[in-house]
């Protein structure tokens, strides 16, 4: 009994010491071999790309969250002609890779023009809008399903109380149902948002110059892993901030239930 505990402590001790030593050697090697000027030029280029990453992130949320709400309303319609296409749309958007959707949105118009014998070439300026369109359409599908689950979880009694008190359907939705749906869907929405911070990197498929695209170009031209490591750190910090903000939001809505 005592021996086994002692040996466990020893093993752990050795592990810790070993890690410290390895870490120290590694860091020393890294620092001595780092070319600071070179690194700062990489960081500056990555930061430029990071701006675009944040833009993709921001615009996608800006468009996909309301679009998802609209889609959710169509999906929940009692009319089959409305709900069925919405269901199909959601199933396709969630059932195929986002990367593929980005490619189709970007290259699709080119083939359409060709089919009609139009001589219109795709300009570079289309890369960013194409990415935003693809991301918004894709994320709207996910948000729609999250909202739907949230709306369906609201007890029917809330609608009935509102009805008896004379609230109109719009008032009921915006004043009574939506605030509760927002609270209930915040955790899954946070998940989606955190996934989005990393999904922005898929824009490299159409060479949109966001951070991952730049990191990849730099890694190739400099034959170094450093741009990837630096990009990873940026992604992590970005995520950390996003997660912190979302946590604050959740805490703010904790005043009831």
């Amino acid at each position, binding site marked *: 009994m005592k021996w086994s505990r002692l040996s466990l402590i020893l093993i752990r001790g050795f592990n810790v010491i070993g890690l410290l030593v390895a870490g120290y050697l590694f860091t020393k090697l890294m620092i001595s071999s780092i070319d600071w000027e070179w690194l700062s030029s990489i960081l500056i280029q990555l930061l430029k790309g990071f701006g675009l990453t944040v833009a993709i992130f921001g615009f996608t949320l800006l468009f996909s969250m309301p679009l998802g709400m609209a889609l959710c309303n169509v999906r929940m319609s009692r009319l089959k002609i409305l709900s069925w296409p919405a269901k199909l749309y959601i199933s396709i958007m969630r059932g195929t890779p986002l990367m593929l959707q980005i490619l189709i949105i970007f290259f699709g118009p080119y083939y359409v023009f060709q089919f009609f014998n139009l001589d219109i070439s795709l300009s570079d300026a289309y890369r960013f809008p194409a990415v935003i369109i693809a991301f918004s359409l894709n994320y709207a599908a996910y948000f729609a399903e999250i909202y739907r689950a949230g709306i369906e979880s609201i007890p029917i009694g809330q609608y*009935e109380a509102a009805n008896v*008190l*004379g609230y109109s359907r719009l008032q009921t939705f915006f*004043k009574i149902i939506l605030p509760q749906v927002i609270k209930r869907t915040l955790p899954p929405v946070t998940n989606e948002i955190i996934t989005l911070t990393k999904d922005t990197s898929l824009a490299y498929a159409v060479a949109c110059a966001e951070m991952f695209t730049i990191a990849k170009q730099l890694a190739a031209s400099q034959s170094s892993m450093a741009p990837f490591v630096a990009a990873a750190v940026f992604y992590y910090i970005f995520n950390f901030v996003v997660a912190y903000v979302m946590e604050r939001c959740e805490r703010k809505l904790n*005043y009831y239930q």
Partner: protein
Amino acid sequence: MSIFEVRHLSKRFGDLEVLKDISMTIEPGEIVSIIGPSGSGKSTFLRCATLLETMEHGTMKYQGNVVCEERPGHGAVYAPGRTLKKMRAFFGLVFQNFNLFPHWTVLKNIIDAPISVQGRPKEEVLAAAKALLKRMGLESKADAYPCQLSGGQQQRVSIARALISKPQIIFFDEPTSALDPELTSEILKVIKDLAAAHMTMVIVTHEIEFARHVSDRVIFMADGVIVEQGPPEEVIGNPKHPRTQAFLRKLSHADN
């Protein structure tokens, strides 16, 4: 003029005929209790009266204003939406499980509908809400959220929420069924106070003793029909119909 009047109401869910040819008039200040076995259609009746369900057949009026009217070949034809919206100010409904809005404070729960639905001035509504909270013994709870209140307190808030719209009649659907016995008496007291103030009320309840004391008339419903009705001394004290007798016997057995 009677406050509420319904003639030949019938209502079905699919093949199930839940209410069969119900007729009833409620006079101003009258307190009517509806008792009856589970599934007899009591809640469905209140839901038809408060426009949460639409009836297939029948005519219904609030103070002579037509909510819906039986037309041969068409069944119950409802008034246009705008008329119905105005009609909702005539009645209040108190639910078994309160159905307060959890994201609003007690005060907001009470004042929001009169302000944003009825368009009444905020100062007047606030003053009325303060008075109601005091009457319900909830002065200190104005800024609390429903989840911070006991069931009895939540039910008192929901009664205040119904009262502030100055309804001509209030329907209660088993207002104490979700409450512990100690809390039940506090709600029954509120209803007794309303009765003393001559509020017109229709109360679906399983509290037979309460129904006997508070009501002017007791209606016994079974299988979607009114089997027997009259003063409580008769319907509860000396029931004529064998079904009423059986129901009351069963209840008193369950109590003992």
